[in-house]
């Protein structure tokens, strides 16, 4: 059949791509970049004020950037690698196999980029995408407001028309890294009398614009990764609206799908040492070589089952998308499961670590890396839409339940 012939030659091409990719990664990924980052400072976020935490981090980033592999599946004209979905999957698999870190972490890559690719005009794509790919501009997300969290569409930040500009007034909350970001992608109300979803616009502006200020919020993890963000008469050209004025909700939702898909990936990072072995370090093993805590061993084993199953499902989600059979709301299902699973992972890590995992400030504990990470994961089922809201979306959009 012609069908299987094409797929045969595709398979052969992919195999070549796999071999070449593996060789390139082997030759170019510094050994230091083949283990997970130990803290946020160890993650490269790019931006105007970006600093590399180490030489290997710089080398790895620059080599990947030059290949377009900070954004492997974006078109080459915007600084991407132009890879097909199948090639991208191969690249990710090969990187995972050697434990290679992402060279650049960025809201621009995970969230804004895909939205611009779909809804941006030519000028916006040319202006912003290459800078995201090259890590030149760091973005933050201005969605949530004090009275608009789960009910995001009730947001109140106003953008009033004034000639060629909008004048923006209001405040945002939970804006991650707003104090480090160069630009913001922001939801504003451009029509105060229209129905809730119909008067919102999606707009981009520079965080150094007059009238923008931020105030960090301290979290239970002891860090302040996000801020209250205030806009006091910020002037933004109307050309900075992405998509149509008052139709920003479409862009917002599309972006959220990507955000959720990204967050769900946390639950399936089966890289590094298996939990069972990490636990054995502190708990010890019995004479048969089994973890010397039967209940914990059971918890870890059923976690492993679920993690492997989720990884299969993530793989299938990509394949379904490629085959044009994906449900647009499926990212909510994955987001829900991936984040709940990641919380479970860290509960197990804490329980496996015992007293050692309770140290908060010491060299030995890498300044409490584990307990801080554990506390951080509690946000996974809140950020990007809460678990309750995800289940609501599944009930409504996938299961089509009444009144959901």
């Amino acid at each position, binding site marked *: 059949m012609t*069908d299987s012939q094409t797929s045969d030659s595709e398979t052969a091409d992919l195999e070549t791509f796999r071999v070449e990719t593996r060789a390139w990664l082997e030759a170019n990924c510094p050994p230091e970049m083949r283990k997970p980052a130990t803290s946020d400072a160890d993650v490269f976020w790019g931006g105007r004020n970006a600093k590399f935490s180490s030489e290997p981090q710089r080398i790895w980033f620059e080599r990947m950037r030059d290949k377009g592999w900070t954004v492997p599946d974006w078109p080459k004209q915007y600084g991407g690698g132009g890879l097909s979905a199948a090639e991208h999957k191969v690249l990710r698999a090969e990187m995972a196999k050697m434990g290679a870190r992402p060279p650049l972490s960025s809201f621009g890559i995970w969230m804004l980029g895909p939205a611009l690719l779909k809804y941006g005009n030519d000028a916006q794509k040319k202006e912003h995408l290459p800078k995201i790919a090259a890590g030149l501009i760091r973005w933050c997300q201005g969605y949530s407001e004090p009275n608009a969290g789960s009910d995001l569409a009730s947001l109140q930040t106003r953008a009033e028309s004034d000639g060629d500009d909008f004048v923006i007034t209001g405040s945002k909350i939970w804006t991650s890294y707003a104090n480090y970001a160069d630009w913001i992608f922001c939801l504003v109300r451009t029509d105060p009398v229209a129905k809730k979803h119909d008067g919102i616009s999606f707009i981009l502006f520079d965080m150094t614009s007059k009238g923008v200020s931020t105030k960090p919020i301290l979290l239970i993890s002891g860090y302040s990764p996000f801020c209250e963000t205030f806009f006091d008469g910020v002037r933004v050209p109307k050309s900075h609206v992405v998509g149509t004025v008052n139709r920003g909700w479409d862009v917002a939702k599309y972006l959220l799908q990507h955000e959720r898909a990204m967050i769900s990936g946390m639950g399936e990072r089966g890289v590094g040492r*298996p939990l*069972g*072995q990490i*636990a*054995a370090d502190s708990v010890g*093993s019995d004479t048969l*070589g*089994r*973890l010397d805590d039967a209940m914990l*061993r*059971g918890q*870890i*084993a*059923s976690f*492993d*089952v*679920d993690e*492997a*199953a*989720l990884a*299969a*499902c993530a*793989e*299938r989600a990509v*394949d*379904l998308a*490629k*085959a044009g*059979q994906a449900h647009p709301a*499926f990212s909510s*299902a994955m987001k*829900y*499961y991936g984040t709940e699973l990641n919380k479970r992972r860290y509960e197990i890590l804490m329980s496996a670590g015992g007293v050692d995992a309770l140290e908060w400030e010491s060299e030995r504990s890498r300044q409490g890396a584990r307990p801080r990470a554990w506390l951080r994961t509690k946000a996974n089922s809140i950020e990007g839409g809460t678990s*309750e809201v*995800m*289940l*609501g979306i*599944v*009930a*409504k959009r*996938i*299961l*089509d*339940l*009444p*009144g*959901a």
Partner: protein
Amino acid sequence: MALVLTEEQSMLRDSARGLISDKAPVSHLRHLRDSKDPTGFSKELWQSFAEMGFAGLLVPEEFGGSGLGFMEAGVLMEEIGRTLMPSPFLATSVVAASALNRGGNAAQKSEYLPKLASGSLLATLAIDEGAKHRPLQTSLQAVRAGNGFKLSGAKALVVDGHVADLFIVAARTSGSAGEREGLTLFLANPKAKGVSVERTIMVDAHNAARIELANVEVTADSVLGEVDQGAALLDGVLDIGRGAVAAEMVGLSDEVFGRTVEYLKNRKQFGKLIGEFQALQHRAAELYVDIEITRAATMKALQALDTDVAKAASAVAVAKARAGTTATRAVQEGVQMHGGMGMTDQFDIGFFMKRARVCEELFGDANYHTQQLALARGY
């Protein structure tokens, strides 16, 4: 390989679904149960299965089969799970066919495989002796006698045991219960002297039997694979069975879930559709996520079986463990959300609950497979 069905596999699914939903809806199982049917399945339907190439799905073409893979077998098992159709497919076409195909010598293959493919011979695997699935605990004895062996011992939960024309019996030629070394698989004739078969009427109204062998004589030709080295062959064959049962559980979970969601959209209480209650919506949504994840894990396992049975063990353990927990949850939520209705025999939901319980025990429950995964990972 992508984790989506190919066009050919979708066509296979559609034709299987057409036949099964038409000829063997749940009422078919109900009828067999209520009439205490002595065969426990429809021979006529089995013949249609054979004519469509399903009976010999895994049998190589040179022996008259369709030479398809485990993904395809899974597609069929999933459809079987949707209507709970009782059929010799699992025991004969999946497990026994794989055992003969993988372990059989040329003479055994050419004698049995064509008959399996044509649907004229039913075969089954007899392993477990105790209440739980513990293949290494086999203690049924095979003692050398002249040129052959004499088998003595008993087996429980032999699927289709009372209708099978051929048993594949796990026996101990050396060592003792619990050891890996010393297991041997034998082909045995259910009609042979010393064999007694008791049909066990099971909760799910599917076919199963207890068998007892008392000094049953078999020739040296009836050894499947190598003497004393049966464990590896058995592992591979069991993994195939496990992957298939996981697929059946995905089918039954999906079906019972679909019926439950329909009910949520139609049943009114307190002046509202019960599907409007968020407490139920969220449980339904969670179950949906569970089923999708289990489906992917099961496809992954079937695919691993197709590419390398020996390396598929972990993927199979994940699938069978997940399928067990998910199916249990799906049928429990199914009954609960149907309220009193779900508790009646007149309503079909209970059939799914019963079959899920049997599938959970068959070839190892979720605990068993979770444990296997932990051992494989070295903790």
